[in-house]
């Protein structure tokens, strides 16, 4: 497995080394002098990477914490527990959908599910997993949706996290939501208020398009009634499967959300938007219709496989999405090339309630199937604590636009209020 254009080596190092990787090698301590370019890409890949976190000198919230604790607060006093889209999460982090690309539906995704459960963070199960791999053709299957649900539930603290199941237009044929909602296996999740459904309006890697994956010829033959197939590689082992993106207007989005709330009253409702130019209007529409969370997937790639034309030229970058949304009227979740604490804290400061890990999670589990994701997230959480306390704040919710400085901007970013 390879993840091009992505800090793969650093993610793998964290998957093996955990929170220690938040620092340069400990053997170098006292022997080397470090400058700016030790970590982080140069030039920065996007505006969010170029921005800096800017702690103040005077910290009234630190004083509050000092009074509360009766001692000087430390980074370990940052409380990372966060309400994420209607669930209680141990961290302002969730596991993003992997979809049905070969990677996303493999045993790697089951290992990721188990670790997400153990971490107490919500997990999203991607679109098209059921139409392509089935739900429970084989009850002892070690991959697929049911295997992922079981792995998550077996590892999870029942008071934390939740599982969110995506459905796209093609999934509607397989009635994924109805299937899960009426399945006795999902009852523990429903009873604990830990089941959610995500309406996938679009995705970051291919704004305006549906899912594109390469299927082997046997699988392609099985799903040929549901998907458009293109034999682009006449002598290759696979064919291109195109999912339709689905048609949305503000009324269609509003009514679909209401319909979900009506049909699945015990489930949380999430909406995933691609980084469209009207992302602020779409997010406002979703919250107004009662969505528990809106995920904005910046145009930063994903596990979905995209045409070259889309990789660098289509869709708004995450920072611009967050800027257009401004002060969110509901729970806003951000995804797009998040793998460490700095990008996470910047997104949280610019209005997000939590950040999603997609490619980073897959890479980490690929590096160490047993503990990779846990170590990666522990390192990220440690950095979030360090950075948040440096900003004089002790909860992720207290982060705001004043904490971020964009090069070239005369002043700090506007202060975004969280919902």
């Amino acid at each position, binding site marked *: 497995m390879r993840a091009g254009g992505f800090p793969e080596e650093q993610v793998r190092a964290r998957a093996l080394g955990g929170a220690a990787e938040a620092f340069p090698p400990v053997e170098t301590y006292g022997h080397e002098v470090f400058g700016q370019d030790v970590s982080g890409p140069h030039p920065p890949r996007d505006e969010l990477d170029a921005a800096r976190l800017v702690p103040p000198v005077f910290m009234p919230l630190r004083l509050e914490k000092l009074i509360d604790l009766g001692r000087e607060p430390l980074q370990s006093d940052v409380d990372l527990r966060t309400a994420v889209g209607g669930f209680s999460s141990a961290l302002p982090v969730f596991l993003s959908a992997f979809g049905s690309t070969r990677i996303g539906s493999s045993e790697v995704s089951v290992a990721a599910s188990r670790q997400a459960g153990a971490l107490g963070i919500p997990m999203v199960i991607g679109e098209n997993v059921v139409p392509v791999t089935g739900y429970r053709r084989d009850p002892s299957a070690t991959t697929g949706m049911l295997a992922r649900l079981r792995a998550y539930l077996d590892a999870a603290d029942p008071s934390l996290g939740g599982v969110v199941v995506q*459905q796209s*237009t*093609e999934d*509607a*044929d397989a*009635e994924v*939501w*109805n*299937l899960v*909602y*009426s399945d*006795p296996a999902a*009852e523990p999740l*429903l009873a604990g208020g830990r089941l959610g459904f995500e*309406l996938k309006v679009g995705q970051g890697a291919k704004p305006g398009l549906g899912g594109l994956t390469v299927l082997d010829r046997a699988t392609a033959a099985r799903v040929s*009634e549901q998907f458009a197939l293109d034999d682009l590689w006449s002598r290759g082992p696979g064919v291109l499967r195109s999912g*339709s993106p*689905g*048609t*949305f207007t503000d*009324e*269609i989005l*509003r*009514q*679909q*959300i*209401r*319909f*979900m*709330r*009506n*049909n*699945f*009253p*015990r489930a949380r409702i999430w909406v995933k938007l691609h980084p469209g130019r009207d992302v602020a209007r779409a997010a406002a529409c979703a919250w107004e219709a*009662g969505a528990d969370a809106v995920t904005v997937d910046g145009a930063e790639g994903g596990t979905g496989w995209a045409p070259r034309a889309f990789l660098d030229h289509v869709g708004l970058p995450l920072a611009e999405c967050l800027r257009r949304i401004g002060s969110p009227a509901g729970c806003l979740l951000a995804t797009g090339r998040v793998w460490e604490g700095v990008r996470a804290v910047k997104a949280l400061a610019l209005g997000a309630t939590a950040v999603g890990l997609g490619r980073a999670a897959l890479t980490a589990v690929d590096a160490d199937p047993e503990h990779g994701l846990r170590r990666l997230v522990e390192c990220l959480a440690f950095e979030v604590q360090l950075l948040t306390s440096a900003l004089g704040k002790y909860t992720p919710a207290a982060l705001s636009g004043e904490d971020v400085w964009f090069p070239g901007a005369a002043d700090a970013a506007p202060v975004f209020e969280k919902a």
Partner: protein
Amino acid sequence: MEHATSVVTEQAARRTPPPLSEHLGSDTTRAAMRIQQEVLGAARDFLRGEGFVELLPPVIGPVTDPGARGSKQLDVDYYGHRYKVMTSGILYKQASLLAFDKIFYIAPNVRAEPVETCNTRRHLAEFHQIDVEIAHGTRADAMGVAERLLTHVVRHALAAVPEQFELLARDPLAFAWLLSGPFDVLTHREAVEALHGLGYAQSPDAEIEWTGEELLSSKKDRPFFVTDYPKGSRGFYDRESTTEPGRLRNFDLLAPEGYGELVSGSERESDYATIVTRMRETGENPAKYRWYLDVMRQGVPRSAGFGMGLERLTRFLTGLDAVWQVNAYPKVPGEVAP
């Protein structure tokens, strides 16, 4: 009389069906089936008398009513194609108007309802509907047929098998109000307000919840209609009001005494472009409805109609505690049964 009471009490205490042999051999089941037979006969007589033609509904098809409230369709492998067992005959009812202006079915339906509905006492995974469709009909026409049908069936059953009601200790006076005059009509908005007045937190944008419906029904002594459900609570085929966008030209008929919904109906959407748009609004993929959309594109008459739940109606008549008691081979959601 004493014997009958003891039968009812013993059955009511049980939340799920006993083994099938015991169920089929019970006096309660026998009495319920005799009443249901009268319901079926009276419904057929009434509808034929009003000029309806009975058709036999299809059992499977490439697509079925997408339904609502979280139930799951069952798949059948049909020569390598994925077919659905009918959750309702709505799509075929509309198409049937190309043959006759007034049609009805006594239709079996299967819905894998969410497991939580096993406690509502009025859900079965396999059940039957008296399905009615009227070409060129309005909502008022459909409500009128539903009201007259219900009144006729109740009057007939009480007269035909009074001894069965006695056996089940169901007091015929329970139907005095039903038989004495027109049913009340509440809008969905008024129903929501009434529930709020009773301290029940009902969303104004959604279907009335099971427990809310039961509560509302328990305050009434005769059946009543609820009309104008909000968009987002019902299927794409319920026509949206042109004078009040966001409201559907539909209705439910609820039984009193807590028995709740007996009938769902509406004026149907018959405009092709509107149907496609409404499909998207309900999260459906229009591609899978190809045969239906082709028929709609060619044009079917505007219509109105409804489905009356046969087991729910029988439960209301018998006064039994749970709907499974009035089905010979009950399948309670989530329970594995023969």
